[in-house]
């Protein structure tokens, strides 16, 4: 029970909760026959698709999220492939969110299956941090029948690392000193945020372990990696933000994006534009639902040889209209894609968001065409709200 003594001296106590193999766990809960079997949630391995997630048994075979489903099948032939039920996952995610809010009002969802919370002071209600975590785990088990792994640290970055230390159904308390003891001897890619290409670049610079990285001067890392170098320097020393943003306070920082891995590589320009139109519609709908407008539109393109580029442009007038998002997204697709490179994945992102009411101050010249678009979008949203998304679509999305 050393946790309470340590956390009480921390300026903030941050908890990261990661649901264990979330999608796979829901499928296993629903289908008890799947227990004790390798379960992979994702597309059909006979077609081109990727692994969304898998349970811990499948992970022992080397199966990982994002891996092509055909490769997962080769690694683990006896695995059960489940197509997944998105509606169930989002519904369960919302239920989990309400459980989190029973423990602190400061909850920042990071994705459908993880969240970070500021529990400073709250744990005293339960006696200790451990009691709070046990109570939350029990409630999660009772209400959704799932387990989670928890990390407790003085900042968000360390809390995220800590939750990965004892999976599944574990809890780890880790401060800066624990971080040094645990991580300094590990390779650099054991830190969240360092992928294979960064690892290779760091290794070339003679940086192999986290300790090597922590010893490197920040200016050298910045020289090699730009702003990302500053991030690398900070994380190697266990530093990170302690500010938890709940939904209301997130409005200045978040972005909204949609991307899709295509069933088959595409190169026909009409198809590329059709997918962009479909994605733009999804992004625009989320913007309007949240009452946001975006100042920056980005496009992500991954070619069949897995090379990924992202491009963005800033708009003169913020928008929540799919037509405008689409027109800008179109211009961002490099002209050589399509004729020369086949495309495997496309994504559209809206960022630099402002609330609807802020726009009035930013936009001095009234735009009558924008007003007409907004009116038609409101009618379309109302129709979709009543009869479902399929009731009305942009004609161009039919090509995709």
């Amino acid at each position, binding site marked *: 029970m050393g946790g309470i003594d340590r956390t009480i001296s921390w300026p903030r106590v941050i908890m990261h909760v990661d649901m264990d193999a979330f999608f796979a766990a*829901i499928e296993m*809960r*629903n*289908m*008890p*026959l*799947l227990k004790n079997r390798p379960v992979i949630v994702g597309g059909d391995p006979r077609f081109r698709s990727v692994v969304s997630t898998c349970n811990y048994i499948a992970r022992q075979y080397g199966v990982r999220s994002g891996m092509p489903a055909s490769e997962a099948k080769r690694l683990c032939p006896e695995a059960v492939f489940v197509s997944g*039920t998105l*509606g*169930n996952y989002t*519904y*369960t995610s919302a239920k989990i969110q309400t459980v989190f809010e029973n423990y602190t009002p400061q909850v920042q969802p990071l994705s459908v299956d993880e969240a970070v919370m500021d529990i400073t002071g709250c744990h005293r209600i339960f006696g200790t941090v451990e009691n709070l975590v046990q109570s939350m785990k029990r409630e999660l088990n009772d209400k959704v*029948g799932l387990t989670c792994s928890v990390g407790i640290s003085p900042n968000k970055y360390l809390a995220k690392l800590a939750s990965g230390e004892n999976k599944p159904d574990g809890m780890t308390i880790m401060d800066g000193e624990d971080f040094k003891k645990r991580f300094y001897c590990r390779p650099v890619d054991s830190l969240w945020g360092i992928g294979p290409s960064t690892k290779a670049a760091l290794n070339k610079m003679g940086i192999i372990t986290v300790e090597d990285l922590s010893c490197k001067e920040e200016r050298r890392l910045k020289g090699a990696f730009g702003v990302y170098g500053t991030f690398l320097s900070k994380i190697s020393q266990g530093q990170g933000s302690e500010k938890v943003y709940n939904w209301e306070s997130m409005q200045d920082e978040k972005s909204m994006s949609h991307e899709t891995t295509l069933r088959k590589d595409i190169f026909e320009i009409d198809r590329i534009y059709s997918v962009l139109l479909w994605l733009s519609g999804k992004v625009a709908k989320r913007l309007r639902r949240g009452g946001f407008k975006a100042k920056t539109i980005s496009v992500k393109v991954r070619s069949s040889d897995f090379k990924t580029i992202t491009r963005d442009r800033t708009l003169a007038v913020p928008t929540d209209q799919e037509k405008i998002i689409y027109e800008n997204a179109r211009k961002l697709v490099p002209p050589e894609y399509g004729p020369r490179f086949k495309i495997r994945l496309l994504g559209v992102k809206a960022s630099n968001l402002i609330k609807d009411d802020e726009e009035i101050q930013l936009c001095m010249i009234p735009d009558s065409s924008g007003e007409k678009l907004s009116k038609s979008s409101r009618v379309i949203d109302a129709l*979709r*709200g*009543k*009869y*479902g998304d399929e*009731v009305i679509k942009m004609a161009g999305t039919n090509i995709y």
Partner: protein
Amino acid sequence: MDEPIEVIALFEGHKMKPVRFRWNGRVYRVSEVTGDWKTDVGAYKVHHYAVVDASSNFYQLTFDERQTSWIISKIWVE
């Protein structure tokens, strides 16, 4: 698969709980509801139930509020 079924359900604790269903002339007894969730289709809700029988065979049953009808949408039988 989305095939029509007939369902007997209980209403308890503000929740609907399928207890028995008839599919292709055969009656199946639900031994446990292992999961339930809702999705929106326009202004209407669609209720989904993951259920198992005594042999742990799995069935996914769906109730569409708008149609007031039940379908069986997935099975996993061994």
